[in-house]
């Protein structure tokens, strides 16, 4: 008979072993899903996980990995701070969209001026946009005790409407013959976020992601605020006795994650996406939730996790063109990964004991 015994502290081995186990289990379960769809499971898994790294077109796809991993890491690192403190910002997608809209609006407002200041100001505007959007749930939470999960999520739908209004209305390209979508940033050098080294996929958003990871690592490990975040998550009562102001943490965690999501948005719109369009929102804000958990809410882990998740994006696109695997299959695949990850956490928090029926071990 199986019995669970709570560990006094989470197992160190399993806290790093579970992500690996979860990825392995997802490959097996995903393979079965693909087999059900009538595709060769081994070929599908190889296309998703192997080809982007070592396949025929790896020289191009490896760069795409960084393009996808950058925004994911940037958003996930911000989210992880809140998740550690028990503050659930689920609306990163909305903050990402608003960051893009704010940043793009600033850039396009001064079109076609050429100045070195434009791009930095756009980035600030993007971070501000994301921050403002995250401040709505934060202030409602601190002032009225409103659930931040539902409010931040509702704001995603509001942000999507604003995005479509931007693409068809106030940011539409005046020379675009009435088609939706803004001017392209790739034809506007002062506001463009180009690849820093051609062919590597390295753009300023990826640099920002690295900086954010280091910043959050230092914050969590070396700063009193990081300690308070961890304390509030693990023992809310103890945190209150220790004088941690929960409202301050809510404003800080939501604001920081919103600003980072906004940054991801503005880097994406001025770089890889290139313009504000109706289908600009790509679900990065939601996938980043999986990335944050896959990286065990640890900044360095998130960096690795964002690369793994980027692999499923890039590989998934390859699988959909080569094997005719539907794009949605990848989304289901990513959701499955989160299931296995959460389930496997049992191993790090509990010990599994085998006991004979009717025989008490103590």
């Amino acid at each position, binding site marked *: 008979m199986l019995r669970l015994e709570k560990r006094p502290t989470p197992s160190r081995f399993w806290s790093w072993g579970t992500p690996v186990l979860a990825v392995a289990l997802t490959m097996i379960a995903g393979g079965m899903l693909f087999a059900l769809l009538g595709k060769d499971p081994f070929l599908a898994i190889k296309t998703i996980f192997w080809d982007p790294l070592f396949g025929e077109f790896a020289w191009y796809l490896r760069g795409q990995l960084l393009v996808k991993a950058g925004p994911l890491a940037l958003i996930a690192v911000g989210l992880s701070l809140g998740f550690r403190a028990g503050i659930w910002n689920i609306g990163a997608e909305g903050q990402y969209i608003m960051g893009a809209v704010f940043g793009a609006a600033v850039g396009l407002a001064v079109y076609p001026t050429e100045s070195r200041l434009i791009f930095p100001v756009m980035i600030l505007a993007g971070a501000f946009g994301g921050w403002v959007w995250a401040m709505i749930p934060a202030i*409602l939470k601190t*002032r009225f005790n409103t659930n931040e999960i*539902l409010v931040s999520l509702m704001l995603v739908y509001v942000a999507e409407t604003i995005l479509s209004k931007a693409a068809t209305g106030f940011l539409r390209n005046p020379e675009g013959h009435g088609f939706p979508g803004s001017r392209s940033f790739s034809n506007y050098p002062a506001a463009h976020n180009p690849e820093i080294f051609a062919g590597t996929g390295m753009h300023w958003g990826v640099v920002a992601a690295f900086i954010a990871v280091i910043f959050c690592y230092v914050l969590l490990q070396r700063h009193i605020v990081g300690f308070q975040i961890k304390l509030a998550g693990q023992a809310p009562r103890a945190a209150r006795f220790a004088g941690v102001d929960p409202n301050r943490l809510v404003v800080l965690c939501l604001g920081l994650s919103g600003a980072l999501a906004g940054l991801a948005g503005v880097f994406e719109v001025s770089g890889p996406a290139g313009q504000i369009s109706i289908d600009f929102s790509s679900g990065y804000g939601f996938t980043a939730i999986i990335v944050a958990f896959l990286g065990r809410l640890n900044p360095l882990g998130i960096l690795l996790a964002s690369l793994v998740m980027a692999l499923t994006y890039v590989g998934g696109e390859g699988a959909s063109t080569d094997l005719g695997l539907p794009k949605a299959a990848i989304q289901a695949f990513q959701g499955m990964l989160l299931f296995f990850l*959460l389930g496997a956490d049992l191993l790090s928090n509990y010990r599994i004991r085998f006991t004979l029926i009717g025989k008490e071990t103590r």
Partner: protein
Amino acid sequence: MDFMGITPSVLIASLMVASVPIMLAAIGELVVEKAGVLNLGVEGMMIMGAICGFVTAVGTGSPLLGFLGGAAGGAALSVIFALLTQVFLTNQVATGLALTLFGLGLSSLIGQDYVGIKPPATGAIPFGPLRDIPFFGKVFFSHDWMVYASVAIIALVWAGLKFTRAGLILRAVGEGHDAAHALGYKVIRIRVLAILFGGAMAGLGGAYISLVRVPQWTDGITSGAGWIALAIVVFASWKPWRVLIGSYLFGGITVLQLNLQAAGARIPVEYLSMSPYLMTIIVLVIMSSGKGRASLNAPASLGQNFHASR
């Protein structure tokens, strides 16, 4: 009497139809939360219900079987949630989110061959002469059977929670799982059953969207209805009849904004279509402020996992 081309009786009749999906999902989630479990995967279960119901109805040609299929689809997805949170003791918030992400992906995977097909029609119940009563005939006697069934389900849940022994046990588990365990009730088993019921109701609501409300299949067809259902449970402060009021309120806003769009009101379409979501936020703020009256009524063990150490 018309206002800007909007007839009140038609408006009320259509808001009753529009509120059925969120009402069903919310009453299911209410039971789940009364048992002390917070399942944020309502959106995922709804959309699974929507596609499973659609596939079944198209395959069999029977809307009734379609609704049953939808309920089965929602319940099947909730099994994953029950397994993870009740057996593997995972965080309920994170698992609920995973359920939504997975449900959205899986549903569009299943539904890719069903885009553009029309499902068999669910007809209105023939009430005969009752239908011809001015105003009331249109409002009360012009609907399909699911509209009446959803109100009946609310009444059943209300009576079940309030007057039956099973309802009392369910509430005990939600208010204090350790005490309920000490009394000998199977906390895990009761919670799993509640989660399954919540899944089936969400699935039923989803099926109503794809079979009656829209009626066809498109990706992301529920567009946040599951999250609004979660908000309605808070709005209702965990009381069944208030779920009905809350759903009619939200159904009313949805229908009104659609009507205003059609009537060519001078408010831009974008602001109208974001109104249900803004309304949800406003309602949540009103309910949760005021010295936390809504949160006082929340089940005491909500969102906490139970592990029997003895």
